């Protein structure tokens, strides 16, 4: 009986705290005000584990293919580079203004900070999943609603080579004609 009362008290307390936080307006949702380290860690871990789990059974096709690179290149330039940048570019309105910030996909993983990447296949799988489904409450849209898997794999293939490209090579690969 005593335990039951204590439990009830705790639940009431938790609900109370949540309600206070929700309704008081003390949580700052401004995108130009970063999360505290703790909240950042919490979200980052949640996100990484969620993607990893959701993506774990996706089968990665052969990505070493010229056609895929061309298809992915054109799509990347038009749909992604405004947020994720391209060789020779270090910032854009989107890359600066969004929070969480879109990672610069034109530099290699160890250059963009704070991310843990597993083996190569795992990275491809994760990228495929993220591009297809997007990431909640971030600027990253779900492209799977409007693009088939083939187009998405093409972007995965392109992103894989992107950090090695010079601005000139990027221009050739992504041009319309």
């Amino acid at each position, binding site marked *: 009986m005593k335990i039951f009362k204590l439990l009830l008290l705790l639940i009431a307390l938790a609900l109370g705290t949540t309600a206070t936080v929700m309704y008081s307006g003390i949580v700052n949702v401004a995108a130009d005000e970063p999360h505290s380290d703790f909240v950042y860690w919490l979200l980052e871990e949640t996100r990484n584990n969620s993607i990893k789990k959701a993506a774990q059974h996706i089968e990665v096709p052969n990505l070493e293919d*010229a*056609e895929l690179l061309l298809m992915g290149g054109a799509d990347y330039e038009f749909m992604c580079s405004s947020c994720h940048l391209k060789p020779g570019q270090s910032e854009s*309105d989107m890359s600066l203004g969004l929070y969480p910030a879109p990672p610069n996909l034109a530099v290699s993983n160890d250059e963009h900070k704070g991310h843990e990447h597993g083996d190569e296949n795992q990275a491809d799988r994760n990228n495929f999943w993220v591009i297809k489904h997007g990431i909640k409450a971030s600027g990253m849209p779900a492209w799977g609603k409007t693009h088939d898997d083939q187009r998405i794999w093409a972007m995965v293939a392109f992103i894989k080579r992107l950090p090695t490209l010079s601005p*000139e090579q990027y221009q*050739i*690969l992504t041009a*319309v004609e």
Partner: protein
Amino acid sequence: MKIMNKIAAVLLATLTLSMAANAHDPKSHATKALKADCSNMEHKNMAMDDPLMKAMMKKCLHQIDHSSKKMSPVEKTVHLFHMALKKGKQKQARELLDDNVTIFEGGRVERTAAEYANHHMLADMKYLAVINTETLEQNIKVFGDIAYVMSRSKSTGQYKNKDINHESMETMILQKTNGNWKISHIHWSN
């Protein structure tokens, strides 16, 4: 199929332009190029069987096909020579000239490819790099291993702070040796 490609190109162009409206750095608008700039192709440290290399080749071969597919060998030689001058490709321009080419230009004469390559060509390249030229007419006649090409073009632009706007005449005589057309005479005037 061609029409579909065109429609796709226009749609994509519209899309880029509308996306570009998000980026407020005006420089990024100016550098949006829809056509692959294949003069910049680097392939030094890349293996031919690298899919990335293949992809770039595909893009650029397709472009060459487009600009010179329907050209006769003579027309193509002249076209490549013009492009080489415009893009400052000295080696390529030199290779299209017969060793003993005679060139009349601006009231002067140059009697070998080497002489031209070391003197006037560099100035011509600087000039052509910044000037727009539009071919108004081109007349080609081929007699066996000899051909002549007469072209009239319009040049516009600015060079050394001077406005350029005039018509230029060009007569070329080409000769086929060992299966290759080479330019053995050029007369330029305007």
